């Protein structure tokens, strides 16, 4: 088994102007998906991220405040899951709830360093 990170890009609820009812139905879908992953033992951890961005850049360590990108490019959160291979994670990502809001799932394998 390997670890993979699913990175959720776009579909920032804060900027989409969803109604309370729409938000509640989103919540239901996320909860169902997460529960399914937990039950199947694939879910290791995950976090949601605040939309505010600070950036430190260059030898001068210049600090700038975002936004730097459009909200559709903003990373909203990530999950770390266990799977045999990336194809299995693609399978898991089928149930990501926010494709219809323009959301994207990026799948990256977590690198393992041999001692």
């Amino acid at each position, binding site marked *: 088994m390997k670890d993979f990170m699913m990175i959720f890009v776009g579909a920032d609820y804060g900027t989409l102007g969803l109604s*309370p*009812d729409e938000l*509640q139905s989103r919540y239901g879908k996320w909860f169902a998906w997460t529960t399914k992953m937990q039950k199947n033992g694939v879910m290791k951890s995950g976090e949601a991220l605040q939309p505010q961005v600070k950036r430190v850049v260059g030898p001068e360590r210049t600090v700038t405040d975002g936004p730097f990108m459009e909200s559709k490019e903003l990373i909203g959160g990530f999950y770390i899951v266990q799977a045999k291979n990336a194809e299995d994670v693609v399978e898991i990502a089928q149930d990501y709830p926010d494709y219809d809001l323009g959301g994207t799932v990026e799948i990256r394998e977590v690198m393992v360093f041999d001692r």
Partner: protein
Amino acid sequence: MRDEKLAAHLFRHQYGRMVSILTRIFGLAQLEMVEDAVQDTFAKALLSWRNKVPENPEAWLVAAAKNRAIDLLRKAKSDQFRIGKVPSGPATVLLNELFLENEVEDSQLRMVFTACHPALKPTEQIAFALKTISGFGIREIASALLLKEETVKKRLSRARKTIVQRSISFAIPNASELPARLDRVLEVLYLTFNEGFHSNNKAILIRRELCGEAIRLCRLLLTKESLRTGKVYALFAIMCFHAARLDSRVDGDGEIVDIKHQDRSKWYLPLINLGHSAMMKATTNGQYSAYHYEAAIAAEHLRAETFEATDWTQILHWYDQLLTLQDSAFTRLNKSVVLMQLGDFAQAKKILDDLVVGELAQRKYLYHSAYAEYYFLTGHPQAALKSINRCLELVNSEPEKRYFERKKTGYKSDR
């Protein structure tokens, strides 16, 4: 979908409550900021609930709103934006009080009176009430009221602007203004309910929710002693009586079923009973309004065990009473239909002939359908067909069109 852990419309109802509470703290001038803050609180709730739902989601949301209010107050004090009246002193004590149930109701009632303020146009009042009190989104309002989203946005922003320009106060009107202002509130609730009840379109579900909201808000009025008037009770009764029939009004295929053919066993008894007890309270002081007579008519229909058992004489009596208080083309039209049931065709036709059709506006097709019925029942099938065709040319909604098409088939075959 596995969100049965959350009460239906939890977010929507909480939205209305929180917007009301925060508006009470920050004032109507800050309504937009308040709505954004509540929206944002919900979006955050959503993210943090992905992995684990809190034990008590409602309490979680309330706590989040409270924290948000405290944040905003701090921000206000640091003078980032100017607010007329920021509560001074131990703000958190005051805050906690505002989140107590009866204070929440009070805040919501203030919002109801704001939404129904006479300075707003009726069309704006409904949109504004659905947004700020009921927590509907722009898309949902548009589909419930059959409007374009742009139109809804315009109405909302006009309403907000008027509220700020006229510095409308966020309050329940004082005793001298109350009767007139309450009348306006009842009108808006009545219109909202009718939007949901009488129109038929694809988005039937959302329209039922309009009925539900109207009932919920009417109930909210009744939580306050000073608002428990006969009219409010009578309007509440009308809504209960009509809502009891909602399920039987369409069949499994979404086709309209008229009252003659409705499955009366499907009428929802608890709502009927609720309506009756409201009527008892509505009639205690012996003053009757148009709402009373409309409720009486609805009750009379519900009382009949079969369509044939309907007491049309009693219904006619209520219509005559109603007409003395509120003479409208629509009520006259209904009266003529009742007269036809009683076999008084001459009188029925006279009413139709004298009707000022323009007053019926988009419901003009009902006038032609009434004529069609008249001609059919008096043995003039050709004239009946002509009238029903006229009706079909004017009717907009698809289910209603199909309903009248079926009537037409009946006129052809049943000679």
